[in-house]
């Protein structure tokens, strides 16, 4: 048997919470790990939710990429584990399917 602990989800599961502060989808964003240099989609990060907020860790080196916690009327975001985050803003105004027309 494997000795792995599978107590994480992935970046997809954080996207709803992060939509409080990001105007565009963050799951498809590419980020570079400040620790090992790996460049991956945010959706591929390992997400730990057994804490007051969420912690995303690099899928390659398991170092912390992002911490996010929202308490009362304030949100705290720590991105120091990423050298950059590259987001697609081309569809920020576009709807994925037209609204109901009546």
């Amino acid at each position, binding site marked *: 048997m*494997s000795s*792995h602990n*599978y*107590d*994480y*989800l*992935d*970046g*997809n*599961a954080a*996207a*709803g919470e992060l*939509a*409080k502060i990001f105007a565009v*989808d963050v*799951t*498809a964003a590419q980020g570079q790990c400040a620790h090992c240099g790996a460049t991956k*989609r*945010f*959706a*591929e990060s390992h997400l730990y*939710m*057994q804490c007051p907020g969420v912690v995303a860790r690099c899928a390659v080196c398991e170092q912390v990429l992002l911490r996010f916690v929202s308490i009362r009327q304030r949100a705290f975001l720590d991105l120091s584990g990423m050298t950059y985050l590259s987001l*697609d803003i081309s*569809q920020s105004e576009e*709807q*994925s*399917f*037209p*609204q*109901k*027309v009546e």
Partner: protein
Amino acid sequence: MWHVGKVIALHGETATARTITLDVADWPGHVAGQHVDVRLTAPDGYSAVRSYSIASGPNSEGRVELTVERLSNGEVSPYLTQELAVGERLELRGPIGGWFVWRTHQTEPIQLIAGGSGIVPLMAMIRARASAGSAAPFRLLYSVREPAAVFYRDELQALTDNDEGVSLTYAYTRAAPKDWPQPPGRIDAALIANATLPSNLVPTCYVCGTTSCVESAAGLLIGSGHNPDKIRTERFGPTGDRK
């Protein structure tokens, strides 16, 4: 960001899972593979948020279907699968996610691998393919505990019977039907070799299931020659009461 969906239909998929059809008045539309967050708020103000994949394909009617599996120790899923009634309202945030999605303009071959209720977002992709009249070849490997735990069985059967572009292989992990060629077991290298698109067709692979299932299946795909960049994964688990 938060929408209110009215429950317009409930349909039991298995003994422990049911599909909730919601009419969401201001729904902006969604892409196959996306999910929503559902928020339940108790009379005392306590609220709990869980993520569920959307099962329905894109549509212009503001319809959102969720298939929810009951987790025995869950905080939200027992309510959604046992108590929620037609006419009630749910708060939804979404649609969420732009990575684990299949868009109808994608023409490349698609390999889908589902573990248990990980079928839900993949079913949305199969439905989106059908409603768009897409000719993209789809192959689904659906790993499930036992025959009675299969979601959408009749619809999957009809879709694969009527369209040569879609094929389906079940893999049973605990109990297989009588005369099933394989003994029950987890997805392994032999199954990947026999029941999935070969890597030389360069399919985009979508893998959804529990974290251990996803790690295993994605590792097997890489081991059989698939480029990790062509593998998209979505994990769920009791941590988030997901799906």
